[in-house]
């Protein structure tokens, strides 16, 4: 249905989508108290959304840290400031790269699976069947996934950051021969818990909320066809990537 209308009036269609998404957010928030009866379901979703993403997050964190270590070592050595490698890696990971890269990976790994799952429930009339049985799909299907995303994202970002630091340490200290003590003491004297680490935690929490909101919304409102589910999955990745980066700019401006 939306394909034909979208080509004719894309602007109003886009505005309608944003509005519907906002209303959907309120519906989820209202459904959260009711979803607390299904704690088991939330726990299961945290495992699917978070636990199953651990391997990709850890691998990517390690490599991002190693690349940062190499690149920054090269750049800093031009200015004779390689002693600051630990600080620069830690600050750029905690404040920006950790939350953002984790969010982009999360959108690709968990967001798509949420959209596809809920979209197929819609396409196979499972959501309607739940309503027939007086089970609220918002409270039983959507809200647990939303909560799971909010809980899992900051934890994933922390794991990503930790592995990133280890990767940078591996490259900087073990490979390029930077002094171990300098690496850590420079980092510990310049990184602040509240300003830097919690800054990243807030960011990743917000990204988790936005990504799961977009993913559940796209899945919930998908046209009930296989083509519709495919489009919805694509839109989840595109929209949540854009939303993540735009929100990152806004949050950085406010949290500076």
């Amino acid at each position, binding site marked *: 249905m939306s394909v034909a209308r979208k080509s004719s009036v894309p602007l109003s269609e886009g505005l309608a989508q944003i509005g519907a998404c906002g209303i959907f957010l309120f519906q989820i928030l209202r459904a959260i108290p009711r979803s607390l009866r299904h704690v088991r379901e939330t726990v299961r979703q945290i*495992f699917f959304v*978070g636990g199953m993403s651990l391997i990709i997050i850890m691998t990517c964190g390690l490599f991002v840290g190693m690349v940062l270590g190499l690149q920054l070592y090269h750049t800093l050595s031009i200015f004779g400031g390689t002693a600051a490698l630990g600080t620069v890696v830690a600050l750029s990971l905690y404040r920006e790269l950790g939350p953002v890269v984790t969010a982009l990976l999360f959108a690709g790994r968990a967001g798509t699976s949420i959209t596809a799952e809920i979209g197929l429930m819609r396409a196979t009339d499972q959501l309607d069947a739940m309503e027939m049985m007086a089970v609220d799909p918002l409270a039983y299907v959507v809200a647990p996934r939303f909560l799971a995303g909010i809980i899992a994202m900051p934890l994933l970002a922390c794991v990503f950051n930790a592995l990133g630091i280890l990767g940078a340490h591996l490259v900087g200290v073990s490979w390029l021969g930077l002094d171990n003590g300098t690496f850590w003491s420079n980092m510990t*004297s310049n990184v602040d818990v509240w300003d830097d680490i919690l800054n990243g935690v807030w960011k990743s929490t917000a990204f988790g909320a936005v990504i799961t909101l977009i993913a559940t919304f796209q899945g919930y409102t998908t046209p009930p066809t296989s083509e519709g589910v495919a489009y919805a999955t694509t839109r989840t990745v595109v929209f949540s990537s854009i939303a993540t980066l735009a929100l990152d700019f806004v949050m950085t401006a406010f949290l500076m």
Partner: protein
Amino acid sequence: MAQRQSFQIGTGLFIVLGFAALGYLATQTSSLANYRAGDSYALKARFTNIGQLKLRAPVKVAGVRVGSVSAIQLEPDKLDALVTLAVDKRFDKIPDDSAAAVFTSGLLGDQYVALQPGGSPDMFKNGDEVVLTQSSMQLEELIGKYLVGGDAGKSGAKPDAKPDAKPEAIQQTDKK
């Protein structure tokens, strides 16, 4: 039931791992790692200029961290910076004629207080003052001196300008 159990174990593992990572970041890679207060004793040192020395900056002997800067005040009458150093109790054998200096680690690094051991048989005790101090090297000042010193014609004019500029700077810090 068995399947549900394994989900719960997996979720628990994931949450524990996530919080462990957060705890690791917070305690090992941030300034909290320097808070390891332990037992320490206080030394005081007066500097005419501390440069960019900050609270919690390290105190080092022979390049090894032995404590941190716990307070920086301006003495109202002498207009000196009074820096309180918290030195770890383990390092209680620092001769009481040791000198304190504000150094910079590397060209772009942070500033720290270096204690240069003297030869006195008596050791520092809690509350002692480090009498011999050396202020921080101001790179700008050195460059200024170098530029001025290199040109004999201008050296007469510049020193006049400098004493005017300095009290101003001190008054500014005093107001804060």
